[in-house]
């Protein structure tokens, strides 16, 4: 851990915000031309045929990613959220890898489906249990400022005191073209952020094809991805056979990255629509 990582993409946001925001004068219509028009029939071939995720930056907000894991490969950037001597949260470069294996597992799933994405690890887990919520919020805020088009969040918080700020961050992400893909909870508890409409929430199905995914017309869980009996990347360069929504989530994140690899201009709203239209239970998913 060393240098504080700068917010290198702040400039871009300011340019983006010059677009009409509150009303649309006649002369501004040209400036909001939509760069991608969905075809009459969105198919998987149209959506991600030929895409490897190249050029798409995917952020894994988790426990870190083990470096040099054969199933994960190159990790372009690893940072951690830590408290400095004054107790202030900082995002610093991280050389510790993964402390529990969870982030590595998620990164491996993304890499398997979208081999050419750029992976960034933001470590927000595994650094003790007190202040964990603050660390999570800070890491998420940083990821949004960096403008990662896809952020995988295979985690949730049950602390209601964070809900409002988390909700604001989720909305900010949505408006800044950052798609948060979050694990749903299959337990009788209230947890967040997967319940927010501005994120994509993911539960598990029982099939073995990694590209089989379903749209759920009865939210809050919006999509089901592969989450049963997977061999996921694990600490020490190995694999572990696991089941859980934690692993269904990066499947949907990876498909999102494939789509953005081919259609980088899609907004989270459009991307969600394409995911719906290419789901295995929708017309374009065949």
């Amino acid at each position, binding site marked *: 851990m060393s240098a504080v990582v700068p917010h290198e993409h702040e400039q871009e946001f300011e340019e983006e915000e010059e677009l009409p925001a509150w009303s649309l004068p006649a002369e501004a219509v040209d400036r909001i031309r939509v760069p991608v028009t969905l075809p009459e029939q969105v198919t998987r071939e149209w959506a991600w045929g030929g895409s490897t995720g190249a050029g798409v930056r995917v952020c894994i907000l988790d426990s870190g990613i083990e470096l040099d894991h054969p199933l994960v490969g190159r990790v372009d950037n690893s940072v951690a959220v830590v408290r400095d001597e004054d107790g202030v949260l900082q995002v610093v470069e991280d050389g510790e890898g993964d402390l529990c294996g969870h982030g590595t597992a998620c990164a491996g799933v993304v890499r398997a489906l979208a081999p050419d994405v750029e992976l960034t690890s933001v470590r927000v887990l595994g650094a003790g*249990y007190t202040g964990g919520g603050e660390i999570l919020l800070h890491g998420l805020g940083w990821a949004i400022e960096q403008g990662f088009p896809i952020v995988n969040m295979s985690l949730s918080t049950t602390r209601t005191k964070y809900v409002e700020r988390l909700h604001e961050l989720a909305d900010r992400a949505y408006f800044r073209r950052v798609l948060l893909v979050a694990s749903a909870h299959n337990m009788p508890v209230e947890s967040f952020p997967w319940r927010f409409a501005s994120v994509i929430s993911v539960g598990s199905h029982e099939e073995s094809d990694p590209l089989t995914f379903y749209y759920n017309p009865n939210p809050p869980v919006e999509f089901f991805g592969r989450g049963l*009996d997977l061999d996921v990347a*694990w600490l020490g360069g190995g694999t572990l056979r696991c089941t*859980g929504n934690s692993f269904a989530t990066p499947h949907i994140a990876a498909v999102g990255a494939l789509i953005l690899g081919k259609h980088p201009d899609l907004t989270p709203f459009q991307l969600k629509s394409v995911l719906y239209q290419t789901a295995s239970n929708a017309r374009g998913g065949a």
Partner: protein
Amino acid sequence: MSDLEAAVAAGVLGADEAHRSLLQATVEVARAIFGAKAASVFLLDEEAEELVFEAVAGEGEDELIGMRFPAGNGIAGWVLTTRQPLVVDDLSSDTRWSRSQAESTGYVPKSMMAVPLLVEERALGVLSVLDRPPESRVRLREVDMLGLFANQAAIALDLLQRARRAREALAGEGRLAPLARVAARLEEDERDAAFELLRAFERVLVETSD
């Protein structure tokens, strides 16, 4: 007074034992339903950042209660931190984990289902089910069912912790200990008088604070 109220509500004396039995019953049913070799509940000790074996059914039942290990490690630590249930089917491939597990408990499971114990917004610990029969392939229904058991275990664990806190408050150096000692020393009719005095004192406090 909330600790004293909790103490009274929980009945304190004996409640500890009753809640422990409820927790034990939960792990025993979980073990039986899944046909597993063992099932256990770990309590999170937030201050020490450790998980403590609080109830065990099956393998290790007699030795493990009270044993501690770091809360950030292993499958249980992962489940606690992510608040997500997890099923792992070939633990033997994680040699580091198996070794440390063997050293601390003397038993190395091959498979593990683990689920966080959540009460309202707090994570109290982890419920784990070890070594289901080899032929039983886990389905998502089983994971959902484990979540239901976890709900029950979390309630039992919550009651147990409340009773313990109440007892601590009333014993030894606890904040309410003098009150408990005085109450214990008084005869039945004196106790009524003493509580009447306390109520009068409370009324005075309320009036002066107005």
